[in-house]
């Protein structure tokens, strides 16, 4: 069990009032808050060690380089990568996926090939593949989601049909940011391997919420963002299996990723440098390493259990609201720490505005999941998403706020 009060003390932002009420931050699916240790890491870096990395031999530069490469090793450990060189620092999940879709897609996709993804992907794991398919002439296919409320998860029977040897890449999310669905990613990786497809896992919603082992999965590429796992904005990771990275052309070019440059030509360094053109986001990479320390000191298995318990409690409490439509896995089924719901007569935007009056931070809209919304006959939902510092008491505040809103709009 998490000591949530102790954890809350680590997060300065939580201790404020919004519209005269204590802040209840339930927008963790969009971004998480940051513990003091992460903020302090930024301050320490800029007050003591700031310097450009790699090309410097003076004390600050050596300290900055050690800290930056130390962060890379820390991230490798965080996901159990075999080699630090498999960790490429990016701006976040979106950039990571773009690099794979572009560099790998450019080298390997051709007409007749199939790019397989799913109906529940975030735009960031969907549009890059639309583009890769368009540019290469490959066909884009989707694993369908089951149920009128998408409560049935991805259709594994359809996967049997879809996952043919024509599939060259299978890109899927670990946890849906809209539904709370947890995909069977170990099975997906195994089955993709069986047909010779590479796997690209969007771990944006899961990485800071549950243990993750790239070697156990046999994953080929994994993308995630620091800002959703207690780290700063502007930093994320692309994990790539070394054997694949070494054969991949760089995406961006410039300083730091070349071994030899003439006016006519350039030769690339190996990974990870090959994929990190220009001055990297040094301070935020280091702070992301500190976020790993923070999360692992608490224990990601513990966090997963806490998320699941809150999710269960929220589902139970929300079910009492008249006219609510909850999407994603049903109460009792395995689901991540979020609840996504709608009401026929009150729009998500109005709910979010009213909740804000009560200090509750929610997100309303399509959650970068427009095609899924359309499939479900929705323009959007209201989403409450939880993390290690949230409590059942906060869910009670949410539910009371929703009751008041429904009353105001005369639907109860």
């Amino acid at each position: 069990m998490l000591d949530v009060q102790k954890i809350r003390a680590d997060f300065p932002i939580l201790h404020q009032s919004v519209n005269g009420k204590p802040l209840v931050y339930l927008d963790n699916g969009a971004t998480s808050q940051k513990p003091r240790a992460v903020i302090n890491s930024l301050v320490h870096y800029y007050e003591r060690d700031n310097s450009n990395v790699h090309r410097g031999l003076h004390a600050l530069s050596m300290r900055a380089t050690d800290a930056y490469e130390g962060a890379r090793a820390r991230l490798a450990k965080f996901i159990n990568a075999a080699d630090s060189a498999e960790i490429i620092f990016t701006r976040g999940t979106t950039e990571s996926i773009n690099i794979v879709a572009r560099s790998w897609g450019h080298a390997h996709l051709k007409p007749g090939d199939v790019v397989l993804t799913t109906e529940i992907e975030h735009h960031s794991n969907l549009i890059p593949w639309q583009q890769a398919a368009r540019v290469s002439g490959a066909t884009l296919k989707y694993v369908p989601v089951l149920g009128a409320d998408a409560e049935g998860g991805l259709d594994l029977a359809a996967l049997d049909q879809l996952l043919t040897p024509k599939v060259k890449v299978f890109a899927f999310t670990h946890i849906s940011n809209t539904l709370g669905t947890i995909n069977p990613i170990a099975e997906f990786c195994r089955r993709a391997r069986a047909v010779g497809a590479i796997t690209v896992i969007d771990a944006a919603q899961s990485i800071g919420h549950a243990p993750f082992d790239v070697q156990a999965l046999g994953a080929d590429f994994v993308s995630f963002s620091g800002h959703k796992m207690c780290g700063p904005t502007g930093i994320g990771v692309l994990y790539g299996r070394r054997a694949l990275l070494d054969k991949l052309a760089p995406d961006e070019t410039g300083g730091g990723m070349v071994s030899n440059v003439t006016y006519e030509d350039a030769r690339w360094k190996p990974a990870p440098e090959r994929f990190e053109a220009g001055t990297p986001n040094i301070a935020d990479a280091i702070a992301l390493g500190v976020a790993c320390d923070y999360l692992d000191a608490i224990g990601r298995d513990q966090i997963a259990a806490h998320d699941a318990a809150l999710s269960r409690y929220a589902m139970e409490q929300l079910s009492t609201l008249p006219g609510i439509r909850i999407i994603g896995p049903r109460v009792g089924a395995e689901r991540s720490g979020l609840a996504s719901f709608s009401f026929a007569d009150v729009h998500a935007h109005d709910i979010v505005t009213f909740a804000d009056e009560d200090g509750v931070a929610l997100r309303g809209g399509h959650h970068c999941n427009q095609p899924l919304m359309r499939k479900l006959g929705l323009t959007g939902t209201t989403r409450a998403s939880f993390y290690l510092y949230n409590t059942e008491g906060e869910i009670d505040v949410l539910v009371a706020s929703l009751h008041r809103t429904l009353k105001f709009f005369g639907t109860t």
Partner: protein
Amino acid sequence: MSADLTELYQQVILDHNKRPRNRGKLPTANRVAHGDNPTCGDQCSVYLRLEPSTSGTPARIAEISFDGSGCAISQASASLMTTQVKGKTAPEVEALYKNFHDIVTTGNAPEEISDLAAFAGVHAFPARIKCATLGWHAAIEALKAEPHETTTESHTD
């Protein structure tokens, strides 16, 4: 409920939200435009019949309707808009929209346009300005020669 929120969700807005005027497709429309607010997925289509005048004066909106989905603010605003622009010429609609835009961005509502003044409360919620202007944008787009799509996600808002 805070004063700001009461001001935002005025009775007239709630009324238009619950009982929208001129809602649905207009079979006789000769102009249509579609607006969406990518921030939230709100959508609004405006259908109108523009009737050329015989006497050389500019064409006027003979009939108008709207359709779509969105929050109370966007739905009520679109509904109220249809009641305000009927019978007006394109320049008159644009002038009215300018007033409306001033009201939702500043909160100051001149007396003579009292119906639109219900939206003065929006100014305290800048993120909702796009909701309030969605229907207006669609109407102005529809008034332009060839029917085509529009979006409120522009940088002037």
